[in-house]
């Protein structure tokens, strides 16, 4: 019961702050709402028993990526709001209509799968989570079965870092 209350509260906060992120006029406020949204997503991870992911979420997203966004928002000091320029060829209503169509489809899929519950997925689980901690488990998987993807991810981050430096440098 308390889990349900926590879930609904956290979900409401996540969705509410997400709506605020995309509707606020001021970009700085938008970034700050994004921080709050990420923090509530981290709370949801804790609720799901993924404490390591919650810590990563706070460190990488709320601590790193959002600060990057704030830097860029501060660097591009906008003399005129970007929304002021109206492109006559832009079809915002079409974009909204397409989004609503996809939302309806997703709702239909949800209603359909709610009417026919899937066979118990938990029964298909090969092995129950051992009693060791969540971090230990994730680390074990990362450094054994998923070692090569892990190394590729590190290479991707290195390439992205070099690319960002090259892009942001005024003259090379």
């Amino acid at each position, binding site marked *: 019961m308390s889990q349900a209350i926590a879930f609904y509260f956290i979900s409401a906060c996540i969705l509410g702050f997400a709506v605020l992120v995309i509707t606020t006029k001021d970009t700085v406020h938008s970034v700050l709402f994004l921080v709050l949204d990420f923090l509530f997503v981290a709370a949801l991870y804790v609720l799901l028993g993924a404490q390591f992911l919650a810590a990563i979420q706070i460190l990488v997203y709320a601590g790193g990526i959002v600060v990057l966004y704030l830097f860029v928002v501060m660097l591009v000091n906008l003399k005129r709001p*970007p929304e002021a320029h109206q492109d006559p060829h832009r079809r915002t209503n079409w974009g909204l209509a397409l*989004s609503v169509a996809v939302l309806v489809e997703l709702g239909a899929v949800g209603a359909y799968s709610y009417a026919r519950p899937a066979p118990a997925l938990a029964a298909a*689980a090969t092995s129950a989570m051992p009693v060791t901690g969540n971090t230990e488990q994730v680390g074990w998987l990362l450094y054994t079965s998923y070692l090569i993807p892990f190394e590729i991810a590190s290479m991707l981050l290195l390439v992205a870092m070099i690319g960002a430096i090259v892009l942001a440098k005024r003259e090379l």
Partner: protein
Amino acid sequence: MITPTHYMLLSAALFMIGVIGVMVRRNIIIIFMSIELILNAVNINLIAFSAQLQNAVGQVFAIFVIAVAAAEAAVGLGIILAFYRNKETVNIDEMNLMRW
């Protein structure tokens, strides 16, 4: 009782908010933040199934998603800065140099 369906509906709703942000807003920084929301929706789905199946592989994939999101944010914001230095705008309607 909170079932995976609840988490999937939350994830779908968050995904849709991100998609609407990408489609409707013109400020490219807001569009990048909407993409982060979309990636978070994917992560919620992965971790909900990881908890449901009692299998930590979903969390490993969520870590990869976060790594890709960090790379995307760094490169994308670098592109925004480089573009802003040349054109003094972050409005995607004015970013039509490569439009066919």
